[in-house]
């Protein structure tokens, strides 16, 4: 299998993502944001970071980078599994590959904490994820509050696009208490077709001494997409 990791000029989780994939036995292809193809990869991760300084809106500038044209084309042809992590998720939304937008956290402040997330609906392209399954993963962002209109949110839940929600230690979704950033519907991640995006960082939770191995398991399940 050929998996690519894209580096934008301000990406800063690309290295951690490459290392996590290597730990799972995948030798990733590195792609630069100016590249116009994915080097034959059928899997791609858009890693976290501040892709383009994130000055206008997070991910807005990176979403217009040449590599994203290639991503969009392959997605349209159903030839690519995509994972956007944190800034990568923001880029996917800005590009219109996932619905909604990620706005400033409820308190307007950056937040770096360990959080629980729970699978809200099983994504059709990834049979490994089970509804109710939960992971402990770090978040680290200032713009992570998932935002859409109310009707759109209902629709996303009905369609099964809402893939992950923030949850408490017991795996319960309790909107205010266990919602670290004020996301509507406590949404932590979306999946539509073969495009998945989430705010938490699975690539950081790759060993017990770093806090958890849940991220490794998460990435393993992602790599089992069909």
């Amino acid at each position, binding site marked *: 299998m050929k998996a690519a990791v894209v580096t934008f000029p301000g990406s800063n989780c690309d290295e951690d993502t490459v290392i996590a994939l290597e730990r799972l036995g995948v030798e990733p292809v590195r792609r630069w944001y100016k590249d116009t193809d994915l080097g034959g990869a059928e899997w791609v991760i858009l890693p976290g970071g501040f892709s383009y300084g994130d000055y*206008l809106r997070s991910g*807005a500038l990176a979403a217009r980078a040449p590599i994203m044209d290639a991503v969009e084309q392959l997605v349209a042809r159903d030839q690519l599994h995509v994972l956007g992590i944190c800034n990568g998720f923001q880029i996917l*939304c*800005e590009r219109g590959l996932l619905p909604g*937008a990620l*706005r400033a956290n409820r308190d*307007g402040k950056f937040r770096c904490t360990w959080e629980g997330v729970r699978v809200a609906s099983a994504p059709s392209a990834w049979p490994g994820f089970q509804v109710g399954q939960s992971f402990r993963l770090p978040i680290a962002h200032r713009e992570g509050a998932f*935002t859409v*209109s109310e009707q759109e949110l209902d629709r996303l839940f009905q369609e099964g696009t809402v893939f992950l929600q923030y949850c408490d230690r017991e795996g319960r979704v309790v909107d205010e208490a266990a919602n670290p950033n004020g996301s509507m519907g406590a949404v932590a991640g979306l999946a539509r077709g073969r495009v998945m995006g989430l705010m938490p960082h699975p690539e950081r939770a790759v060993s017990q001494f770093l806090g958890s191995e849940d991220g490794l398991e998460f990435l393993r399940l992602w790599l089992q997409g069909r």
Partner: protein
Amino acid sequence: MSRWQVVVAIRLKAEILDPAGQAVGHVLQQMGFDTIAQVRLGRLVDLEVEAEDREQAVAVAAEAARRLLANPVLEVFAVTEAREVGGHR
């Protein structure tokens, strides 16, 4: 061609919640501004555009706003001003 200073105003759609604006409103209340009922935050983009005339300057700015400056999921934009600032060349 001459140089135009064009202003694009970008605002959240009315139906989108603005927690940051609410927070600012809250602080203003605490500071004693009790006549300020609502606060919403938006963005302002000042562009310097080379164009034949005002119409073209406005069109370029609007196109930039549509394709990049504003996020259609959340925001609406308006070109609010276009002033000639540089002579013809």
